[in-house]
């Protein structure tokens, strides 16, 4: 069974630019989560999508946004890039059962570097 896939693997952008990251969940999973993993920090929750709707977001500015498509894949968009946006962006998916034991499975991440 294929795991969570993300693209691209690496990305280099300059300040002020915009970027789109993509994620395909595990087949059968309806919930998609986005996390930011900055160097030396843990994973910070960004966004949660389920059934095409944004259900929850973390403490990030509005220039971080995204969407989920009918096939449950998802995009994360970051506008007006800042140097501190340089991080590994991780996507995870789950069955979306609502239980706390609804395990999140992570993709390999997209490494974003902002110059």
């Amino acid at each position, binding site marked *: 069974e294929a795991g969570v896939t993300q693209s691209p693997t690496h990305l280099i952008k300059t300040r002020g630019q915009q970027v789109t990251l993509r994620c395909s969940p595990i087949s059968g999973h309806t919930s998609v989560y986005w996390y930011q993993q900055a160097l030396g920090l843990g*994973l910070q929750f960004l966004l949660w999508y389920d059934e095409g709707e944004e259900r929850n977001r973390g403490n990030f500015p509005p220039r971080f946004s995204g969407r989920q498509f009918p096939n449950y894949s998802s995009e994360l968009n970051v506008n007006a890039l800042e140097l501190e946006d340089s991080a590994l962006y991780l996507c995870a998916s789950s069955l979306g059962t609502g239980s706390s*034991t609804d*395990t999140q499975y992570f993709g390999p991440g997209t490494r974003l570097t902002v110059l």
Partner: protein
Amino acid sequence: QQQVKQSPQSLIVQKGGISIINCAYENTAFDYFPWYQQFPGKGPALLIAIRPDVSEKKEGRFTISFNKSAKQFSLHIMDSQPGDSATYFCATTTSGTYKYIFGTGTRLKVLA
């Protein structure tokens, strides 16, 4: 803000030794405590998880110990192997929130 405090930041253990990583939380509403293992260049992978109604869970060489009154939980890796060298994250969540709160990670190095 809800937090999970993880320690140590890094850990070096001899092959065959025991690796112990600790996490402390604040919110008593948390009801699921997973541990993730992350190798360089890979996403985190679920290693083992525990609910607060049990004090210990063992899977192979990996054991979670849970102390509800102290609001602490720990990961024990018995007979540590060089292949266990990775970064380990504790996490916690509450039913219905779908939001995992992660610790800052422990970089484990097991010497051959």
